[in-house]
């Protein structure tokens, strides 16, 4: 079936067009055009907006706002976003990174969504014309979202963003799993705040709440993190795909989480 593209200069007009049946927003197209090439006939019309705000990055102090049309390559190369470079570079190969957008990554099903794992650990805010939502709430209901995501916002973490992606093919390969963590430590070295996000451990990125809680008040030593690793897989329901089985993902999660926390 023929696919038609409609381009609008404003998000408002594009959102109005997206109300019609059979329409889908076009980001970089790495998933949606791929779907069409594979014979997905549920989409007959692609909608995009060229509004410049969608491609803007603003960094003021520690506050960052990234337009949804920004690509992984643009983020990986941005001098003020060094903290996110590792997560942006984890997505696909060079050509994919030149195309894959932040907005599209928010909707990417497992085993994809590595960049969103980082955004989840950063507790990002996801903006649409209708308002702002914490990323966790946004992800929980993303399938019923029909509005264009315009930008994501977050605070750069003082102690940095830890990120790790495990894949079988190096340097580019689909995730066995990915983990992002934002930790704060008290002067005595104990963890005072922990945000840990997991990729491929459910159909979409999820927080490792039990592990986060078990880390509080503990030091980042093998003994200190042991209780957190013991509950790392609580609440997970990993995908089974050609990369890894659900069982394998659960088995190796504590090993990789341990490496990330001790790094």
């Amino acid at each position, binding site marked *: 079936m*023929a*696919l*038609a*593209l409609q*381009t609008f200069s404003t998000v408002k007009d594009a959102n109005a067009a997206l109300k019609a049946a059979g329409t889908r927003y*076009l980001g*970089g*197209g*790495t998933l949606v*055009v*791929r779907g*069409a*090439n*594979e014979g997905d006939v549920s989409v007959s019309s*692609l909608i*995009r907006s060229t509004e410049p705000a969608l491609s803007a990055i603003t960094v003021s102090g520690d506050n960052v706002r990234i337009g949804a049309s920004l690509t992984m*390559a643009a983020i990986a190369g941005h001098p003020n976003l060094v903290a996110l470079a590792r997560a942006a570079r984890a997505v*696909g*190969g*060079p*050509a*994919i990174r*030149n*195309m894959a957008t932040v907005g599209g990554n928010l909707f990417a099903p497992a085993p994809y969504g590595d960049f969103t794992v980082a955004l989840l650990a950063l507790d990002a805010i996801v903006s649409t014309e209708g308002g702002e939502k914490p990323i966790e709430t946004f992800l929980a209901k993303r399938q019923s979202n029909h509005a264009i995501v315009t930008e994501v916002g977050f605070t750069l973490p003082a102690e940095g963003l830890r990120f790790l992606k495990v894949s079988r093919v190096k*340097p*580019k390969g689909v995730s066995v799993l990915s983990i992002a963590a934002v930790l704060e430590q008290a002067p005595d070295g104990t963890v005072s705040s922990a945000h840990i996000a997991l990729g491929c451990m459910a159909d979409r990125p999820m927080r490792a709440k039990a592990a986060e809680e078990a880390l509080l008040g503990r030091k980042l030593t093998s003994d200190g993190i042991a209780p957190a690793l013991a509950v790392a897989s609580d609440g997970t329901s990993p995908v089974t795909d050609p990369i890894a089985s659900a069982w394998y993902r659960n088995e190796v999660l504590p090993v990789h989480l341990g490496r990330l926390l001790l790094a």
Partner: protein
Amino acid sequence: MAKIPVQFTLNGAEKAEFIDSGTTLLHALRDKIGDTSPKGGCHQGTCGACSVIIDGELRLSCLTLAETCNGAAITTTSGLSQGGVLHPLQRAFLDAFATQCGFCTPGMIMAAKVLLDHTPDPSRDEVVEALSGNICRCTGYEPIIQAVLTAARSNSQNAA
């Protein structure tokens, strides 16, 4: 459905075509314009055989809609040789036996060209990283990596 016009430069030459909306750039280049150097391997973004350079960036033409390229400057491997003289990358690929069936070659050369345009003297790791989105079923990759390193060296010798 009504055809829509697209217009861009391809290897420096102005091109204008009428296409169906939703046509991929790969389809437009190969079947409309007649540049068959980008290859359709998977149409899924995984093989890299369809790689082209759009406004200086490596892109997959199988996942790019042609109408989003209006006004762009597109480079394909067929535009690299000048007056019958092969581009240093093409020469190095031939000399190093880095092309066997040849299906991956235009995509590999596009990926390598973008690398050398930005990083004239890359390390081996940088070459591997730059080619990581391209699959080759024949060569085992090593001759390709060597070809890119050789082309980089011959470029720097020519520049010296």
